[in-house]
Every structure is written in C-alpha cells, then in structure tokens.
C-alpha cells in the first residue's frame, strides 16, 4: 500500500514508495523536456528527409538534398587543384625563371615552409638550422652543393640512402681502423681545428705536424685548402658550420671513428613539384639577407 505524502518544500506529492529512506516526488515532467524531445525529433525527421540516413536493405535513403560525400570530396579536390594552378608553372619553368618571378617565389616560400615542416624539420629543425648530426641547411657551405639543381637532386636520391642513384660518401675511421697512429690523429685534429679557429689559438707544433698528415690523408677529398668538395660530398673544414661539432673532442671523434651520415631519398614520397619547391625554398633560405 503506497502512502503518498506532500513534500513540504516543493509542495508536490511523493509516489508513496520508499527505499532505504529515499522517496520520490511525483512531479510531472517539465514541459521543457517534452518540448525539446519533440524539437530534436523534428530536427531528426528533417535530417532524415534531407540527408542520406536510413538503410533500405542493399541501399539507403538518399535524402532530398542529394548530399553525397564522394561527390563533394571530388569537388573539393578539383577546387584544390584549381587553387594550385601555379604548380604547372613551377613544374615547367627553370629555376632561374622562377627565382626571378616574385609572385612564384611568394608561393614557393609559403608552400615550401609547410612542406619543409612536415617532411624535413624532424631532423633539420623547423628553421632548417639543424642540430648535432644534422646539417644546418642555411650555412654557407653544403655537402653536395647549394644550387637549386644540386639540392633537388640530393632530395631526390638522398645520401647513403639505399636509393639506386644515392649520393654516397664516407669519412673513413682513420684512428679506429689503424690507418694512422693516435698521435697523428691528435695532430691532424689540431690542424683541422686551426683552419677555422682564431689564429694562434691552437698549439703551433701540433698544427704543423698535422699539416703533413692532412696533406697525405685528407686533402684528396677535403681539398688542399680544406675547402671541401661538393662532387664527393666532402665538407668544407674552414667555416664555422659543423655537423658533428667543431670542438677538439668532436673533431677527434670524427677522425678516429669516421662518419657516414644518412638522408633518406624522397623520390617516391614527394612529387617532382614538391621537391622542386623544397629545393627553391632552401636555395632562397640560403641567400644572404641584409
């Protein structure tokens, strides 16, 4: 037997049941609830009429608006293609012509930055300044050449990448493999360091001793002056840009253990236009700015 009672606070009756001291009011459902139930149902009804919604066995109701995700994505792709009509121009024009065209170069800077950020920045950094083990692409000298042509080729085939035409280079492990004794490694380290260091800051005797070692072992790739050779991917040793560090210990390590850095080939991952934009973007980045 249910015993309804009036709740003194709200004035409503209870349902008369009680569970562990909990009672329930028999309050009618507020009108707003019915209103919104009906409103959302009417909205849904409209949506069902206009949009593809209900399955009908093998097919589904198409909706009065004829909305179709497949068609709309095709349309979007078409529009995107049109918006990038300039890509034809970049594809066909040569580097010099593009570089002379300010409108095209604006596009190169905009698209190139995003392309670089999504594909290259993981190693070279968003500002292309690299970090230890990853070259600074804005530095004056490059391993394989800084012209747009050379850059585009490096991007295409990579370095020590496994690509059939990959650029390949190796700094030999002169110390570890016993090609020159430890003392000579130390001397040549001093010589190499002296090439970019302030005059007189490195022990003269060592530099002198290292010079001869250098001429015999290193000059073939890095050149008599230490200016490097882009044909061989040998870095310039006279500037301040160091991939693996320019302090004594780092240079010693490079000579002792050798180096063989890698960069992946992008031929199968980026379209020719995208690679061209990246090459132009980097060449532009490398231009000295006032």
């Amino acid at each position, binding site marked *: *037997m*249910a*015993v309804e009672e009036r*709740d003194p*606070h*709200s004035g409503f009756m*209870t*349902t*008369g*049941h*009680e*569970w*562990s*001291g*909990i*009672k*329930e*009011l*028999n*309050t*009618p*459902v*507020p009108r707003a*609830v019915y209103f*919104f*139930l009906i409103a*959302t*149902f009417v*909205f*849904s009804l409209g*949506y*069902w009429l206009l*949009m*593809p*919604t*209900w*399955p009908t066995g093998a097919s*589904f*109701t198409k909706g009065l608006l004829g*909305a*179709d*995700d497949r068609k709309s994505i095709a349309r979007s792709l078409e529009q*995107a293609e049109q*918006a*990038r009509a*300039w890509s034809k121009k970049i594809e066909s024009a040569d580097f010099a012509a593009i570089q002379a065209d300010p409108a095209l170069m*604006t*596009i190169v800077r*905009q*698209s190139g*930055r*995003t*392309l*670089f*950020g*999504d594909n290259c*920045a*993981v190693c070279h950094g*968003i500002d292309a300044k690299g970090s230890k083990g990853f070259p600074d692409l804005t530095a004056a000298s490059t391993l394989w050449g800084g012209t747009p042509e050379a850059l585009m080729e490096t991007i295409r085939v990579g370095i020590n990448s496994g690509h059939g035409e990959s650029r390949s280079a190796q700094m030999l492990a002169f110390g570890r493999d016993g090609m020159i004794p430890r003392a000579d490694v130390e001397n040549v380290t001093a010589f190499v360091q002296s090439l970019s260091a302030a005059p007189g800051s490195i022990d003269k005797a060592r530099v002198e001793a290292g010079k001869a070692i250098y001429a015999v072992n290193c000059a073939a790739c890095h050149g008599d002056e230490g200016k490097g050779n882009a044909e061989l991917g040998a870095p310039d040793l006279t500037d301040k840009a160091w991939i693996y560090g320019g302090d004594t210990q780092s240079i010693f390590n490079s000579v002792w253990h050798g180096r063989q850095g890698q960069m992946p080939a992008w031929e199968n991952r980026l379209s020719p236009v995208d690679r061209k934009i990246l090459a132009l973007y980097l060449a532009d980045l490398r231009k000295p700015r006032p």
Partner: protein
Amino acid sequence: MISQLTIPERRLALTILVALALGGLLLTIAGQGDPIGVHGLMFLIAGAGGAFLVIAGYLAPEPGPERLQHYYDEPTKFGIIMAMIWAVIGLFVGDWVAWLLVYPELTFDAGWASFGRIRPIHTTGVIFGFGGNALIATSFYVVQRTSRARLPDQLSPWFVLLGYNLFCLIAVSGYMMGITQSKEYAEPEWYADIWLVIVWVTYFILYVRTLARRKEPHIYVSNWYYMAFILVVAILHIVNNLAMPISLGQAKSYSAFSGVQDAMTQWWYGHNAVAFFLTAGFLGMMYYYLPKRADRPIYSYRMSIISFWGITFFYMWAGSHHLHYTALPQWVQSLGVTFSVMLLVPSWASAGNALLTLNGAWDRVRDDATLRFMMVAAVFYGLSTFEGSFMAIRQVNALSHYTDWTVGHVHAGALGWVAMITFGAIYATVPWLWKRKAMYSAGLVEVHFWLALAGTVIYVFSMWNSGIIQGLMWRTYNESGTLAYSFLDSLVAMRPYYIARAIGGLLFLIGALVGCYNIWMTIRAAHLHDPAADSSVPVPAPALQPGE
C-alpha cells in the same frame, strides 16, 4: 574473509581456485616464449595462492545464521579500497603521460614506458580499475539496501571483485609487454576477455538474484541503471572481442570483424562503454547517494523513467559519430548525428533531475563538500553531454576530430562527472560502512574537492584551447592554396597547453591522495575505537516489512 564463507562455499571456492591455477599452468606451459606465458603464471599464482588461503582458513568456524540479518558489506569495503588504489595508479600514470607529451624523454628509453603502452595503462587504470571497482562496490551496497535483501551468498561477490581486479592486473601488465588488440578501451587479448566474461556473467547473475530476493515491491531507479550497466557491458564486451587466437599458446588474436565493420563494431562498443559503463552505472550511483546525502526526495520519478529509457535507447545508435568523414558510409554517420542530438534531452533531464533534487538542500551543498562533489558532478554531466551532442554534428566534428578537444571532452566527463560522483559516493559511504559518524576530516574532503575542481577546470580549459587551435591550424590554407602550418607548427603551439594540462592532472592526483589519506584515517579510527568494528555490519530495520 574465508571465515565469512560457509563450508560448501569454501569447497566451491577451492574448486574454482584450483581450476584457475590449472588453467594458468596450461597457459604457462603452452605459452613458453610468448608473453601469454607470463600471464599464465599470474593466473597460476592467483589460483594457487588463493587456494592456499582457503585451505589455511578451511577449518575456521562457519558463520552463524545471524549473518543473514545483516547486509553483506565486506566486499563493498574491499571494492572501495581497491577503487582508491587504482585511482592513484591510474591518475599517476595519466599525469606521467601528460608530462611525457611535454618532455618526450620521460620514457627513460624503456619500451614498456613508451606512450603507446602507458596510455592504455592510464585509461584502463582509471576507467576499469577505479571506475569499475567503485561501481561494483557501490552496486552491492545500494542493491542490498534498496531491496532490503542481503546478497544471496558470500562467495560470488568475492569472486566478482577479486576476479575483476585480476582482469585489470592482467590487462595493465599486458600493455607493458606489448600485448594489445589495438582496440581503444578493449585492449586486453582473448584470454583476458574470456576471463572477464566469466566474472561479468557471475556479476549479472548475482545482481539478478539479489533483486529477486527483494522485499520492496518496486525496483529502485538506481538498480535499473546498475542493471543496464551490467547487462549492456556484457553484450558490448562479448561482441566487440569476438576474435580468433593464433594458438592457445599465443597472446595475439585476430578480430572476427575487418575493415569498416571492425571500426563500426569498435565504436559501437566504445561509445556504449561511455554510455553504460561511464554514464548508466554512475547515474545509478548518483540516484542513491545524492538524495541520501541531501536528504531530499528525488525531484521527479517520471523524469527518471523518461531519461532512463531515452538514454538506453538513443545511445545505442550514436556510436557512428566517432567515425565521421571516414570510410564508414555517409548514411551511418548522419543517422548517428540525429540520435546523438536527440540523446541530449534525456541526458539533460537526468542532470536536471539531480540538480532539482537539491532544491531545499542548497545550504547543505554549501556546507558539505561531499554533497558538493555530487552537485558538481551533475553539472559536469550536463556540460559534457551537451558538448558530446554538439561534437557529434559532422560540421563541428570536422574541426574537433583528432584534436585535443576530444581529450578535453572525455576528461570533462571522466574527471568532472565520473570521478566527482564517485568521490562523493565514497565519502558518503565510507563512514556508513565503517560505522563512523563522519569522515576523519571534513576539512580534507574540502581540500580534495577544491583540488579536484581546480584540476578539472585547468585540464578542460587547456585542452579546449589546444584542441581548437590545433583544429584551426590543421585546416588553415594560405593564398597559395597550401596548408599554412606544418604539423610541427601545431605541436609547438600546443606545448604551453600541455604543460597546463599536466599541472591540472597533478592537482587532481594530489586530491586523490588526500582522499586516500582521509579514508585511511577514517578506517583506522574505526578500528582503534572499536576492535569489533570490522565484523559488525549495519543491521537492517529489524521488522522487514514489504515497503508498503
């Protein structure tokens, strides 16, 4: 614990544990060289260890028939303690993951500590470890009192709780070894899933048996929700985990579904796990503890009915909104949109019913942090269900999908609603269970409340900001028609929000630790003042008359 079992129950327990140990031994042998072998060993240790405990206590005197005059609350006590332990584990790992996104080196170069492995430890720890234990524990408490019936036996509640925690342990340790089905919130592999089915079906039967013994003519609202939670989670779990293992000695299995069907099944599961695990179960909790603590009648019985059936019916259709703009056919997506929109009405009706119940008790909300936990939970429930329906609309989803906005939304629900209502319920129930007048320190409940609220708000706001910025950056084009930002740019932009998020999570974790201390001190006080407190359980009204 063993002394509370009757002799036939001890015998049955021994049989089950020996079977478990044998099953574990089988897996250990078959799974040599595979991570499943480690789990076999864990089953073996659990079974054998349990069997030894039962044997050790086998000859203890049987509980007398006077036990039937009491509610059986020992399992609830255990469940609440486990819930708090899992809360600390889950929240700690969660905050670790949050800091990991700021400082990637926090994996310490260990495979098991990589993002992909510790993130599911966090989600499983908080959802299943913390939430699940709290739900099971409170459901035992609530169903007995609202039915005026004791649990039908002493063994099955222990089997459910211990078995469930074993499942959680298997799940979490598996992630560290790289075992996963790669299904979000359903990561554990086939053998763990089978174990959970056994546990869960026992839970269901136990619940129905208790309800069948009730001395009230009607089933209280809380029990509808708990029942929906138990029943639907069983269905979801079984269907989504249908899979074929490579062999009995290998952890890896292949799903019965493939491609877009697999995705749809997974998100039918995923969304309804939110609906029936994280919503229905906790609504059951709210419908008991909120009116009890506020000492007010439920605002509207009718609204409870409308919301219950609305929620159970509409939620089932809404899962496809997790797959907008994917290979899922467009009609499935747009059908999901409409049901997600309609779902808002019963959700808000539930939140409204809770808040209107507090009319006449707002002074208590002001003074009592425990009740305030529950009030804020209802508010966050309303907020996050609105947000959910909003984000289910395809055009909104185009911006929000795959961004931190989703993460923020989930945490508005998980921290603001689920955890807050649970803490409220635990603070209400701990003194009742351990026969104390109140918690050890009302001040510390207050401290926990403000830490939890501040943590949640910081978390949710930072993820809203981060998510919307991310979403906009990913879709912004420059005049050349290319995307204006690289993914890396968006990562850089998110960093400050990630720091804020991790700080918010840290506050929430500290709050939980304060809660643990407070609960520990309450229990300790109970034992200090009354050595018999452990075995004394509340006596129901002596004259058990049917409700009316």
